[in-house]
């Protein structure tokens, strides 16, 4: 009920309602995302975690309207950015105006044949028309300064190939910051970078999002960073959200067997040796299990799990802030006995 009210008052920066994505291929239909809802509140920082191939990027791309369709077949009950639908032509405008996205790999997200200042200029011109050349240039320098870029003048005159991976990702962040958007989407912004740079980039992102009071949706495999940066976290498995709740509590006391396994798989400095993994692989999207998609890898799978997929249900005292999609949630399992 509370959620409905918030929707009415446009208090969500992002509201995805019942998104489903599938692909028709020669062998049949790939049911990648059967039906997913999530929301990001104003100035809220939300994490989206799960193993590679579970559909995180697909969700983000659908939100930014850059999922190629066809081949993807997208159905939703509506995706709203700051209360406005992103459907159709007007929706594309809304995305251009109010969504910023940082992609996984900075070496492919900048145009290799255009200089940085040209790329930034085209974006500025579309966002803030009718300024003089020197004003635009000042905007560019300001945004590069905001990401603590060394030698911004030289960077502006460079092609992407002349910059290092970390510098390119800083440029991408600077570009995403130039727009005055409420919603910032970061799709594994540090995956393609080396570890020393990873820390810097995530800290930078965290600082900027806090300063500018933006809403952030962060996909990352760096679970430590997700824990540090985000307020709330969604755990995804095979196209479904299996657990959603306040980051601190979910990380401290995970309820879904998959979340438990995922967190246990993270190596710890204090731990002994190599961390535990989860045995098995993601199910095939071509012929997903009828019941819970995690059932076959789950240490506490019951008959019910194999028949009907569980729905997200509240496990917290206050209605709906912590939800788990599992019939046996929190029934005594602490680690995955795989």
């Amino acid at each position, binding site marked *: 009920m509370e959620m409905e009210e918030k929707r009415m008052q446009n208090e969500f920066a992002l509201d995805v309602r019942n998104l489903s994505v599938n692909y028709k291929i020669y062998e049949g239909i790939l049911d990648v995302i059967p039906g997913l809802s999530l929301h990001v509140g104003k100035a809220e920082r939300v994490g989206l975690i799960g193993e590679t191939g579970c559909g995180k990027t697909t969700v983000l791309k659908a939100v930014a309207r850059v999922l190629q369709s066809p081949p993807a077949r997208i159905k939703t009950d509506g995706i709203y950015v700051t209360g406005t639908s992103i459907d159709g032509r007007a929706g594309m405008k809304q995305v251009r105006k109010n969504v910023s996205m940082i992609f996984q790999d900075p070496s492919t*997200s900048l*145009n*290799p*044949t255009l200089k940085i200042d040209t790329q930034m200029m085209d974006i500025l011109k*579309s966002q803030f028309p009718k300024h003089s050349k020197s004003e635009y240039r000042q905007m560019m320098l300001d945004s590069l300064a905001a990401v603590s870029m060394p030698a911004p003048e030289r960077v502006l005159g460079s092609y992407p190939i002349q910059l290092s991976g970390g510098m390119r990702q800083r440029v991408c962040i600077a570009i995403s910051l130039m727009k005055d958007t409420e919603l910032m989407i970061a799709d594994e912004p540090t995956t393609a970078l080396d570890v020393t740079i990873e820390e810097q980039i995530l800290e930078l992102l965290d600082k900027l999002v806090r300063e500018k009071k933006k809403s952030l949706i962060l996909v990352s495999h760096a679970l430590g960073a997700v824990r540090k940066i985000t307020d709330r976290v969604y755990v995804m498995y095979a196209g479904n959200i299996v657990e959603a709740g306040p980051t601190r509590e979910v990380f401290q006391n995970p309820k879904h067997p998959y979340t438990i396994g995922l967190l246990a798989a993270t190596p710890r400095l204090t731990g002994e040796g190599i961390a535990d993994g989860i045995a098995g692989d993601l199910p095939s999207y071509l012929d997903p299990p009828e019941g819970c998609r995690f059932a076959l890898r789950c240490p506490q799978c019951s008959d019910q799990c194999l028949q009907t997929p569980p729905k997200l249900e509240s496990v917290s005292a206050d209605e709906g802030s912590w939800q788990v999609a599992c019939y046996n949630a929190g029934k005594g399992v602490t680690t995955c006995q795989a």
Partner: protein
Amino acid sequence: MKILKKTLRRVLHTLLVLLALSFLIFSFIRIIPGDPVRSSMGPMVPEETIQKIRSELNFDKPLPVQYFYWIKGIVTAGDFGMSLFTHRSVGEDIARYLPRSLELCLYSALLILMMGVLLGTISAVFKNSWIDNVIRVFTYFGVVTPPYAFAIFFMLLFSYSLRLFPIGGVPVMPAEYVRTGALGLDALLAGDFALYGKVMHSMFLPVLSLSIGGIAYQTRIHRSAMVENINADYIAFARVAGVGNGKLIFKHLMKPSFIPTFTVYGLQVASLLGNAFIIEVLFRYQGFSQYSLSVIMNKDPYGIVGVTLIFGIIFAVVNVLIDMGVSVLDPRIGLRGEA
């Protein structure tokens, strides 16, 4: 500085290739049986006269010496030898016929670039729509049909049935107009726009027949380059960042797509003059191709070397231009070795 050095090296390289090419052709022609002097003079000329001409043209000396004299003639006097067929200097003949054909090729090159990029872009942007299908069907036909088939078809349709264009030949140029040898250019230089219009009218079908295969091929290359890049991350990134559709397609997508397009285009332009052979014959467009055919048929030694060298020079120059153009388009190539 770096670019200058690179270009200079390329030019030197090219000169060496041309030198080797000329020597090869020069030698090969001598292998063809039969005496070119005798065959050009006919059976009635006495043997002494033939021998005299042979020694005048250095044909009685060893091959390397002949080659040396020939090169010396080019370097000192710009003299490419005498044609046994037209009895004029080969250089003079080339200067007379080449500009005409170059003009034909120039219009064709422009048409191929404009239409290829236009159709390729439309096809890629509206991928899998009806218009894309129409364009793709056209490109299949364009690529597989030889130019002469188009030429004959156009002649039958536009000239014979519809009587829209002349079936062949070119307007007569008044002698005082002739400056460069290129028909349209001479008409323009003389300020005679009516004549220029006539020239264009008579050149329309030859240019179209010469270009259609190139347009089809260029369209396919440009379409596939754009389709490949349209899914690139940087296009998605620029789109979310707010770049409008027009700029996205015609700048952010066009520039990287131009790299393969430009490379293929260069090769197409280089082969235009060769493709023009049959077109010029069919349309009775008296240009370089007809001259080349005549010297080859008549086994005219200096003529053949001169003509072949022109083809070599055009290919070499175009290749250098492609390399320079691609390194301008693609900083990943242009900047190599700088870091």
